[in-house]
């Protein structure tokens, strides 16, 4: 199998247990999953179902208790600290629910700082902001932007960092409906136009309609795994 044929993300009996003894919490319970490259996946589920845990394990910011996560052929669990940093830099981009922008950097600097890790420059960062409709706000600080604008900066940051996998944790959770739809459209474009694998965690089932595939988690297990027909996606 050549690298192009590898699934973008694969999990094998992936398990994450928090705590020990009788109070231990099994957040993920032997999850098996294969996500081909370029797929737009939505993870649905109630609070505490294990969605964010799965996302964090895929992104290499949490360690599994059992099983394996393989991203683009890399077994994330086997990476040492240094290799894990390289993995995060080159393989995944994050969009956090609460934006997590650096308050002392302007919009373009926030993008440039992270995107620069994969070789993007100032022009790329400006272009990414332009793509998300923030060409005027490039030199504004986070405190001078609205919540929707901040989230678009966070997405521009993830988009400009040219990694094969883009992970978004409740990217529309803090936004109004119109801003939320705009954000999702941007992520969909990243998938369609740049062939990036996108995994979005949400508990808003209406977002599922934009996905290629919907996974539903309950108590740390995938209970629904369905594909969405392209013609049924909203335009």
């Amino acid at each position, binding site marked *: 199998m050549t690298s192009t044929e590898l699934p973008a993300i694969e999990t094998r009996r992936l398990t994450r247990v928090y705590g020990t003894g009788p109070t231990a919490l099994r957040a993920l319970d032997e999850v098996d999953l294969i996500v081909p490259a370029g797929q737009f996946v939505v993870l649905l589920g109630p609070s505490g179902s294990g969605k*964010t*845990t799965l996302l964090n394990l895929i992104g290499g*910011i*949490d360690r599994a208790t059992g099983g394996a996560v393989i991203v683009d052929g890399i077994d994330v669990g086997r990476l040492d600290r240094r290799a894990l*940093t390289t*993995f995060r830099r080159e393989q995944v*981009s994050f969009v956090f629910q609460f934006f*997590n922008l650096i*308050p*002392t950097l302007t919009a373009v600097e926030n993008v440039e700082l992270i995107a620069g890790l994969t070789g993007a420059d100032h022009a790329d960062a400006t272009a990414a902001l332009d793509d998300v409709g923030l060409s005027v706000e490039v030199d504004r600080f986070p405190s001078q932007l609205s919540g929707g604008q901040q989230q678009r900066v966070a997405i521009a940051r993830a988009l400009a960092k040219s990694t094969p996998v883009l992970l978004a944790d409740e990217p529309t959770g803090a936004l109004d409906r119109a801003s939320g739809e705009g954000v999702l459209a941007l992520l969909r474009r990243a998938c369609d136009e740049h062939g990036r694998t996108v995994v979005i965690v949400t508990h808003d089932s209406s977002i599922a309609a934009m996905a290629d595939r919907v996974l539903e988690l309950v108590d740390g297990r995938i209970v629904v795994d369905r594909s969405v027909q392209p013609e049924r996606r909203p335009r």
Partner: protein
Amino acid sequence: MTGESQARAILRHKLRRDLRRRRAQILAVAGTVLLGMVLFTANLDASRNLGTSYRETYERFLTADVWVTGGPTDQLAADFAATDGVVAVETRTHADVPMTLDSRELVARVIGGPADGLVDVNQLLVNEGRGLRAGDGWVTVLEKHAADNFDLGPGDRVEIWDGSAWRPLEIVGVATSAEYLFPARSRTEVFTVPDEFAVAFVPESVASAVAPAGPRQVVARVEGRDPEVVAELLRTARSAGVSDAYALADQPSNLALQADVGGFESLSYLFPVLFLGAAGMATYVLLSRMIRQERTQIGMLVADGVTSRTILRHYVGHALVVSLIGAIPGIVIGELLGRWMTTLYTDFLGIPITVTRFSWATVLSALGFALAVGFVSGWVPARTAARIDPAEAMRPPTPTGIDSTSWAERVWPLTLPMTARIVIRNLARSPRRVATTAVGVVLSMVVLITSLALNDTTGSVIDRQFSEIDRRDLSVRLDHPVTDADLLALESLEEIATAEPSIELLVVISTPENRSEQLLQVFRADTVAHGFPAPLPASGIVLGSTARETLGAEIGDTVTVSVPALDVSIPVNVAGFVAEPIPSVSYTSLEAWTAAGGVPPTTVVLTLRDNGEHAAVRDLLAARDDVIAVTDHRAMIDTIRELLTITIFFVGLMVIFAVLMTIGLMFNAVTVALAERTNEMATLQANGMPRRWIRTTVTAETVLVVLLGLAPGALLGWFVAGRFMGQFDNESFRFDMVLSRSSLLLAVVLVVVVAVVAELPGLRRVDRLDLPAVVRERSV
């Protein structure tokens, strides 16, 4: 329980848990308070106890209030006795006489005791053997310093020069004298070499036999040490034309020790205030951060009806508790350390009575001080918390950052690298935190520079006085006037480089309005034994600093020089001035001295060749028949250096404290800075930013803040050190503040290194961040 008191009870639980959760930071702040309290309590207690021990010693031994030398002593004694308020008066012989102790010839101070052996003024504390009794013959009670130095005790014998022959003197006792707690020969000769000075208390019959010409002295004790009666006695004495009259305040030993006790008292306030200031700032930084972090909770409490008064009480209470955590053990340790320091100081100063009383005043003032620091530093952030608008506080998070680029970037013509931009803007983002940390650096620098300057100044003063100015290695007192043949004979010795005739004697220099007691040294105009800025003039006198200041004389003015020992007074022109560390020495040339009819010199001052072993030469010269005494000036430097060991000990202690304070402040500042940006750090790590980059930016920020505080810290330290050294100035020694470049560099390096080391625990915490948890936090 009302709703408000219930809220308070719950807030008390919160307070306990907050203390547990932030224990590292709390301990850093409490540790700084503790250091301040330890210093405050220990210094205040030791200073108070030292003062009490000192005064108690003078009281217990019925120390005199007035000393009068020369003049009509019997008449003066009668006049004094008739003065209201005078409790006791005694007359005695008080002369410097050659003695041999343990085969070593020296000029000893011989003091006569009353014939009946009953002393009403200046009693002795007999350490070994017995005191003088009625009917005693050729016996002595040796003063403790000499007995210890020569390892002599009751039953041993010494010899005394009676003007024509050496006479044996049996030691019957060893005693401590309040007049010689510090073995100063006179106010102008405060430092003496143990091998060359001894005080022997002898029956008056022996004293008058070895020094029939005196001088004699009247000593008087005044009821309650009434200053008006003391002043009256001094006026009476001076109007009778005595050669010397002084009060207890000017008594040589007291004068020397008062400088130490006074300097110690200023220390007891200066450093603790600096440390407590630092503790206050650390508390302020900690609480400000906490309130910002708890903004939403506070908003919720206020929205639910908790009064702003309760919020204020909660956070002020937090600051007070942190202060008390440091203060209580600090006061206990300080009390114990204070006792130890009192004993250390009384031992070092030779004060025989050590009083270590527990003082509630010290404890309560320390506690009050700590609570005041907690209250003041907690009030401002607590008031901010109490005024929080609940609606504002509970809105979705607004990035707390800046809304414009820093002025440094606007001024700088080129675009700064991203890392530099982040570093600079992070500083601009929390100006108060930066300011308080920089002020902490300033305080650390003040403590370090003051301590190091104390060390440098004392070292420099000694080097200047005893290397550049006083170049005598040895002085030899002959039993006849110095001749050219003597000089040639001495210079013919291989180790001796130069031999010059010299005279040294106590004089009183006066104008019609003022008088100044000085040590007059007479040298050849072209002397090499003393470093003058210009050769000594052929006529006139060169005045030392105290004489210049006291007399207010100008060059060309006429002053009267009186020599009590020779009972002569001559008018002399002021030919110049010198500003030396020992300010009470004036000079004239041998030519001028001879022209004025002065007695021929009997002393030869020697400088040795580089390889000259002064101890060997000293012993060689002491063995000569025509030599009465040999003074080893090099040994005096060693004695003075030895006296400074306590200064070095103190400096070392202060440096350690300053380092601890810097660690506490920096740890707190960096921990808070990192805590404010945990979310950013985690985001950067989640995106693959190397930890090294994060460490570099944090370290760069720390170093920049430290650099901000270094220059003002150095300047303020310089100023404080100058004022501090001024406390030690007295008639015996002038301390012009010196701070060497290496000390300044050491202070800078220490502060920077300590600051960088103090941030390591905070950086380790960043390395161990729980990324999944942090990136989901709402706070930024």
